[in-house]
Each structure stands twice: as C-alpha cells, then as structure tokens.
C-alpha cells in the first residue's frame, strides 16, 4: 500500500507541475507581448501578470495538498 501511495503522490505532482508550468508560461508570454505593444502600461500589466500567475499556481498547489494527504497516511 505504501508503494502505491508514494507513486500516486509523485506522478500526480509531476502532472500537475507540467500543467502549471505551461499555464504560467502562457500567462507570462502574453504579458510580455502586451508590454512590448504598450510600454507605458507596463506597470499595470505587470501587476495583472502576477495575479494571473498566482491563480495558475494555486491549481498546482491543490495537487500538492492531495500529495501531502497521501504521504501522511
């Protein structure tokens, strides 16, 4: 039973990080592109980018919570 729990936590975390990395890359890419189009709005765009990154990262961290629950059993 131990093996399956460790395996589940590891594989789940890996897949979640994959999705999260792609998502954060998309958010940051669009933010950099908009900052290049309108440099005077760069500060506002930067603040919005961080908010977007926090949302994507939260979804990855939901899986981390599940991994902790699996590891602690």
């Amino acid at each position, binding site marked *: 039973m131990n093996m399956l729990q460790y395996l589940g936590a590891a594989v789940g975390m890996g897949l979640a990080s994959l999705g999260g990395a792609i998502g954060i890359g998309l958010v940051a890419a669009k933010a950099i592109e908009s900052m290049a189009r309108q440099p005077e709005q760069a500060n506002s765009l930067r603040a919005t980018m961080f*908010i977007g990154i926090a949302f994507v990262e939260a979804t990855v961290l*939901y899986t981390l919570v599940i991994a902790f629950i699996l590891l602690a059993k």
Partner: protein
Amino acid sequence: MQSLFSLIDNFFQYVFGHPDSLIFFVPLLLLSFIVVNRFGVIPNKFQTFVEVIFEFLESQFKPLFKEEAHYKKWMPFFLTIFSYILILNMVGLIPRLTAPTSDIWLTGSMAIMIFLISFFLGIKHNGPIKYFILLTPSGIPTVIRVMMFPIEIISMFAKPFSLAVRLYANMFAGHTIVRTILGLTEIFHSKLILPVDLLFVVILLGFEVFVALIQAFIFAYLSAIYIADSLYMGDH
C-alpha cells in the same frame, strides 16, 4: 454523539487555544492607530509608502462596486482582510515562528465567512427563490438554464473551498519546501552541501515574501469579487 462533542471541543480549542493570530495582529493594529494619528496633509516617507499601497488597492477594488456608497461601506472590510492575512503570512518568515495561515482551520473559517456573507447578502437582496434563479445568467433558453443549475451549485461550493486551499497550500508549501531543503544534509550524509543549501534557502525565503504579499491581495480581491457579485446579481 461522540463526533458532536469533538466538534464542540474543536471549536473551543480553536477560539481559545490558538492565540497566535491574535498575538500577532492585535499589537500591530493598536500600533497602527498611533501611527495613523500622526499622518498629516504633507506626507513623510512612511505615509507615502502606505498611501501608495492604499492607492493600488483602491484602483483594484473601486471598479467592482457601481455605487460610491457600497464602496465606502465595504472597503474597510476588505482592507482588514488584506492586512490581517498579510501580517499573519509575514509572521511565517520570522525564524522560529510558523504562520497561522498555514493552518487549514483559519483559512477555512475565513473562506466560510466570505461564503456566508455573499450567500446571505444575495438572499437578503433578492429573496431565496429568485437568488437561485439568478445564479444562471439570463437571456439563455430555459432548458439550458436548468441543465446549468447543478454546475452553478457546484461552483458555489467550489469558490470558498478554492479560496481556503489556495492560501493554505501556498503558505504550507513554502514552509515545507524550506524545511525539506534544509534537511538535504541528512539525505546526502555530508555537511559540505551547506553553503549552496543556505543560499538556496535565502532565495526561497525572498520568494516567500513575495508569495505572502500576493496571496493576501488575492484573497481580499477574490472575496471582494464574490461579494460584489452577490450585491449586483440581477443588474447585468
């Protein structure tokens, strides 16, 4: 019966047995009263810093509320949530202390509070039956609205859950990663890895400051969005 007793015991243990959050927040609150009393019309450096933060928050929260009276009524609440969570998050960076927000009970109870406020505000404003009818957007054929209703109910419960788990997981994960990296000397069975280790930990703690700020702001901003959503439910 047993579980009811343990529930009540948990409640009392939480309210009277966890002084951490009050110990850190109440002295800073009293200190802030003393400091703000000395703010004048011509600002000094600290006042400018506080005003920059406040202007940023105002620029984010003001477009959510359509009337000035609503904004003036609800803004202190969101500012309190923001400063409370910010202070509790920052406490986690002090060496021997753990952040009170890395506790699912505290974040869960704050998220449930926001959920109850938005739910009962919507019901008080619209009446119970019309609230559930207004959950699904208007201007869509009735058949699709009936099909969308379970999805909207699930999302109504998912919102406070995600609010709680987002804050809890960010704080808990940061703390755990620092502890894991510090424990690398045990895994590699040598102390030579310490300088690289400590450098990495310092960089991680710097990132933690940033995460603490952002998560506090996101909690306050999302709770403002949910409450403003309930206030202006039928008005699209």
